[in-house]
């Protein structure tokens, strides 16, 4: 059984996030108890690292971090329930990084594909792990089919491939942008995001601004966490 979180909005609605992402976990645990042959691959997010700086490994869970939104927190809580449960040995937690072609980053890719100027309020040197939906689907299918993944938490981040382990290091935001851009791009320090929005308003939308106000993506564009994928690599080599 593969389970994906139901609610992925990067907002502050914790009650709703708990109702749709944490509460179903109790039912999943019951289902696993009822059927000893059943295995669960639970899709979580690397963002359960919250504001933890530095290294975040697959063995980490509660590092005293704070969360940027209810989605990340709800998945942290869901992981906590699974880790503490008596069916833990039949559960694989897959922490997914951002998707390039789905979710909040997809709007950046679309903006960069146009020729209009884009102002990005982000730290261009920060690491941003992102893979395509197709890459993630391939990784997920491979992990779910592998009994050696049971009981483990795995990071599926930039460079992970079920068929081969690419030696590529995580990509910086600048590298991601440079690979996709077709028009001019300017970076602003993350603290000056309102300036990017003002520029967009002053030019009547000609200059595009990223991230959009209220998108909840801002913190990840200045993130300084390195995601270690030791166990995921061991699984494919």
């Amino acid at each position, binding site marked *: 059984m593969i389970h994906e979180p139901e609610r992925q909005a990067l907002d502050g609605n914790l009650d709703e996030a708990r109702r749709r992402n944490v509460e179903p976990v109790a039912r999943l645990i019951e289902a696993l108890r009822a059927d000893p042959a059943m295995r669960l691959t639970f899709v979580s997010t690397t963002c359960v690292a919250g504001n933890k700086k*530095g*290294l975040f*490994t697959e*063995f980490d869970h509660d590092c*005293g971090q704070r969360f940027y939104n209810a989605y990340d927190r709800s998945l942290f809580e869901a992981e906590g329930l699974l880790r503490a449960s008596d069916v833990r040995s039949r559960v694989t937690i897959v922490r997914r990084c951002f998707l390039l072609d789905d979710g909040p980053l997809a709007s950046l890719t679309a903006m960069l594909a146009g020729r209009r100027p884009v102002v990005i309020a982000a730290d261009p*040197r920060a*690491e941003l792990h992102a893979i395509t939906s197709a890459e993630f689907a391939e990784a997920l299918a491979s992990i779910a089919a592998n009994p050696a993944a049971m009981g483990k938490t795995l990071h599926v981040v930039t460079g992970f491939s079920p068929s081969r382990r690419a030696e590529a290091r995580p990509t910086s935001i600048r590298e991601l942008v440079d690979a996709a851009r077709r028009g001019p791009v300017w970076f602003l320090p*993350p*603290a000056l995001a309102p300036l990017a929005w003002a520029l967009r308003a002053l030019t009547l939308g000609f200059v595009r601004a990223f991230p959009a106000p209220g998108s909840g993506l801002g913190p990840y564009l200045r993130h300084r966490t390195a995601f270690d994928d*030791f166990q995921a690599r061991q699984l494919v080599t």
Partner: protein
Amino acid sequence: MKIVWHSSIDDIGAAALEPLEGSPVDFSHGLLRAMERSLWGDLAVRYLCVEDERGLCGFVPLYFGTNLGFMALMPKLIRLGYEWVVERFGLAMAYRVAIVGSLISDRGFWPLRPDADAARVLDRMIAAIDAFAREEHAQLVIIKDVHQDFPGIDRFRAAKFMECHSLPTVRVDTTFQSERDYIAGLSANGRSSARRIIKKSEERFTFEFVADYAPLVPEVYPLWRATFLKAEFKLEELPPQFFVECAKSSPPESELLVCRRDGVIVGAYLALYHRGQQLNKRIGIDYRDPDSPLIYNALNMRCLLRAAERGIPLSYLGQTAYTPKLRLGGHLEEQFLFIKPYRFDVGLSLPIQRLATRRFRREIVERETS
């Protein structure tokens, strides 16, 4: 005498390092190789070598990047202020730091060939570090954990580095012949504590030294991680790969002391040893266990007894948790940081840093732990 830079310790080779004398474990080929293969973020390493017609005279690793834990010893306010600025204005605001020395050192003796002119070799190395810092636009060079007895310490002073105190290291002379001999050499307080530790730990736990411990890393790493996250000074964050590489590397030899309760691992201690010195590195504890302080003490004590059994006369226990380590027979030894700024505004903060590190002077640490 010429300067050569390498980007991998394998380019130098273990054989070339053998004639050098310094800290035999901290600067060993295997430990530096393990570190090199587990670097993360934008951290990179270069190895500075001085060679003459007879081969290698001296060498030292130099790590540079923005994710070095160089703020670990600073007061919380300064650390938070730095984090705040970098978070809001990006890594362009982060100090580009070069740290010279072993990143997980306990006893900073740079490896030098005994027949070489030490002062001349060190002066050449310092000049090369200076040139590297300017070329790579480093804003700060930190020569890390130079031991109080390192004979070339005056060369750093002469080169106008600012001298700061680092965390002292704990030395234990493991020259005792037996457990009884070890306990007899402790203070009255230490003796009763040691007897209690041995008795209780034998009742509650089993202990095993494991030489091929790589397969245990997934099980033990969460314990190492728990200790790191709990530590007052969060020094280098080591990924799981580091421990796997340590298990594969030699020299130094290494083994893992594993402590189990009812078959479940509740503690582990990595000991690395080479040429008469042992470094007890990276203890891991399951803090959910009600006897976690006992596990800590028992692991420390058993690693010391193991060093004595092997005939290793000198053990180092690391740079934190002084109270239990001194009770187990440890002595503090001073270590120093030598810092040089390469930007005016960075230099302005150095007097504060120097002042902040005065609390790590041996007499102050001794007073606080007594």
